């Protein structure tokens, strides 16, 4: 059974530390999801490429992007988006390409030259459902906000705070 990952729960734009602190201060929990975040931060509805990083931890969507990348893209594009001897870095691809362009390539594939081919993922529901997440993960990597390896999810911290009774 294909695991379709839940769509992004923390729908925030690239906020940087200040924005994050604002969010935390208003006590928005991950469970509260998009609506309250949107209200609280006055940000437009989150788009592809958005991500949140706090102390190396990421929102659920970006985490899902890491997982989807590692499951479906790493075999050619190398660990952590860094590229390999077989296929280029997707971090650079996400930096240089619009989301429309990026998702088009994922869905349609590419034939750069004979013998250099990227397959189409149009039939892969899991990848299609995660293109935005993968793009966000790559944007976070490209901006230097997220390092290598498997990130932790902010949710866990919020959950921990919850246990400490720190949420409002």
């Amino acid at each position, binding site marked *: 059974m294909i695991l379709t990952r839940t769509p992004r729960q923390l729908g925030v734009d690239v906020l940087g530390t200040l924005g994050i602190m604002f969010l935390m201060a208003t006590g928005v929990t991950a469970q509260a999801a998009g609506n309250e975040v949107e209200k609280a931060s006055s940000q437009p509805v989150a788009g592809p490429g958005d991500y949140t990083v706090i102390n190396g931890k990421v929102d659920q969507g970006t985490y899902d992007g890491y997982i989807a990348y590692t499951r479906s893209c790493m075999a050619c594009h190398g660990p*952590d988006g860094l590229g390999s001897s077989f296929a280029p*870095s997707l971090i650079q691809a996400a930096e240089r390409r619009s989301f429309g362009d990026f998702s088009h390539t994922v869905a349609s594939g590419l034939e750069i030259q004979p013998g250099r081919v990227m397959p189409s993922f149009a039939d*892969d529901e899991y990848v299609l459902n995660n293109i935005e997440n993968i793009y966000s993960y790559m944007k976070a990597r490209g901006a230097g906000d997220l390092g290598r390896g498997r990130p932790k999810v902010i949710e866990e911290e919020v959950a921990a705070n919850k246990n400490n009774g720190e949420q409002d």
Partner: protein
Amino acid sequence: MLRYPGLVMTAAGLMAASLAHANQNQLDLQQNPDFWATQLGNYQGNRYSQLDQINRDNVQDLRAQWQFSTGVLRGHEGGPLYVGDGRLYIHTPFPNKVFALDLEDEGRIVWSYEPDQDSRVIPVYCCDTVNRGLAYADGKLFLNQGDNTVIALDAESGELLWEAENGDHTEGETMTMSPLVVHDKVIVGNSGGEFGVRGHLTAYNVETGEMEWRGYSQGSDDEVLLDPETTTMLGEPIGEADLGISTWPEGEWERGGGAPWGWVTYDPELDLIYYGTGNPGTWNPEQRTIDGEPADNKWAITVFARDPNTGETKWVYQKVPFDEWDYDGVNENQLIDVEFEGEQRKGLAIIDRTGFGFLMDRESGELLVAEKFAPETNWADSYDLETGRPNVSEEFSTFRQGVDVNTTNICPTAMGAKNMQPSAYSPETGLLYAGINRICMNYEPFETEYVAGQPYVGATLTMMPAPTQEGDMEGRMGSFIAWDPVAGETVWEIDERFAVWSGALATAGDLAFYGTLEGYMKAVDIESGEELWRFKTPSGIIGNINTFQHEGKQYIGVLSGVGGWAGIGLAAGLEDPEEGLGAVSAFSALKDYTELGGILTVFALPDA
């Protein structure tokens, strides 16, 4: 070579006459130390040469004579063949070009051949579009194309003689292994363990390309070509029928992997071929359980001894029942004669993906030795020689730790402590020489669904250099070792920055050779491991180092051209698990040392 029609006719006549014993030609060529007629040097897989013109005393004078670009950028595995006709025969990764190069004219192209293949096969390869080389017999070259076509070419002209369809890339099948010619059959195996294919080894008639037999890696005994009454496992009859079905959950054997994508070796006296099968289908072990408990998933990760005439299985040994780490069992089975506990034994030695060095009796299939050659190996403490089973460590069992749980610091990595890079064996020293990987991993299984032609992996993994001990090179990811297969001990070890992914060579010149991922070809003293010579080729070496003699001059040839799983996994360097997120990697990135590009380099002594 001249191309008079008369010569061609004579050659054709010879071929017809030798039909019944087509391998006699291959055997004769192997026995001439001047030739390198099969990828592993001989049927036994020893990669040993009796040539000693290049030796311990003069190797520092070894020079590159000429180089040849293949025009292909992907990972170049395998190596050149020399059968005494003044030419080198080489191949490339996809599109699988074949070249006949004139050895007397610094690699002038005598002929070239390029198959017309559907490029949609490219994404179906698991780990780069590699090919491990040509086979030769009786004036014919045999090649396994990536699109599952087996072809025979006339070595004289490059003309296509026949082609046979061995599989379907739309189902995830590819071919990367090098065929082996035994008798009048060319023996080939498929690839595609990451796409849920069903592994099979198949024999085609060398003259006609007709299929002679096919033995599957799972399914009914009839399809595996075994008889539970007569086929043995560790010296005893298997007993139970159809284990290739009953050791899987319902229907899972149909996508049960076990692709034999590695090397095949052959014992002409026992008339048996030996090869290993790959990982069992999905990397998520939970999906291969029966009633929630581990199941053996036979016959994945199994050494098969088969009769090359019929394909019937003489014995089997499953190295890893119920794989939880992707430890494909395809490593070459080195056929060596050894003294074991005071007795002469027909041995079979494996420097295995699992980190264990095995010694078996190749006649009876008994397990004699199983010791770690990579001391960091922790997925199993040891092997029970009676049952042949590993004593798996629960801490590193990805099944016990569970689905969606990241089991950390498992050694070796899924790449194995040794991957496809074939080892060498010197009958003079009695030691095996092998490039190995010193890499560990975190592994997280997840539930996956089978879709024909799509990856069927079901685990994510991250890799890190193996822990070092005092005296080891800091952060090293590979070594070149001399291994005593009887004592089960490493005799010497040279650490390398990256995994050593090239095939080794041992010679009567008291030398061992290997290549590095940065692109160095190195010669070391076979006794001590002391480095005596090195040369930097233009790209990383994942090919095999072969040697041959033409008109009294010894040559060494190697394909460089980085790629394969090594290139994919190591290009960017590995993360340091001890470092915080965002830290600059403490470990070397391969892309800082080398770039793509297939080159053949031919070496010789200047005054020879």
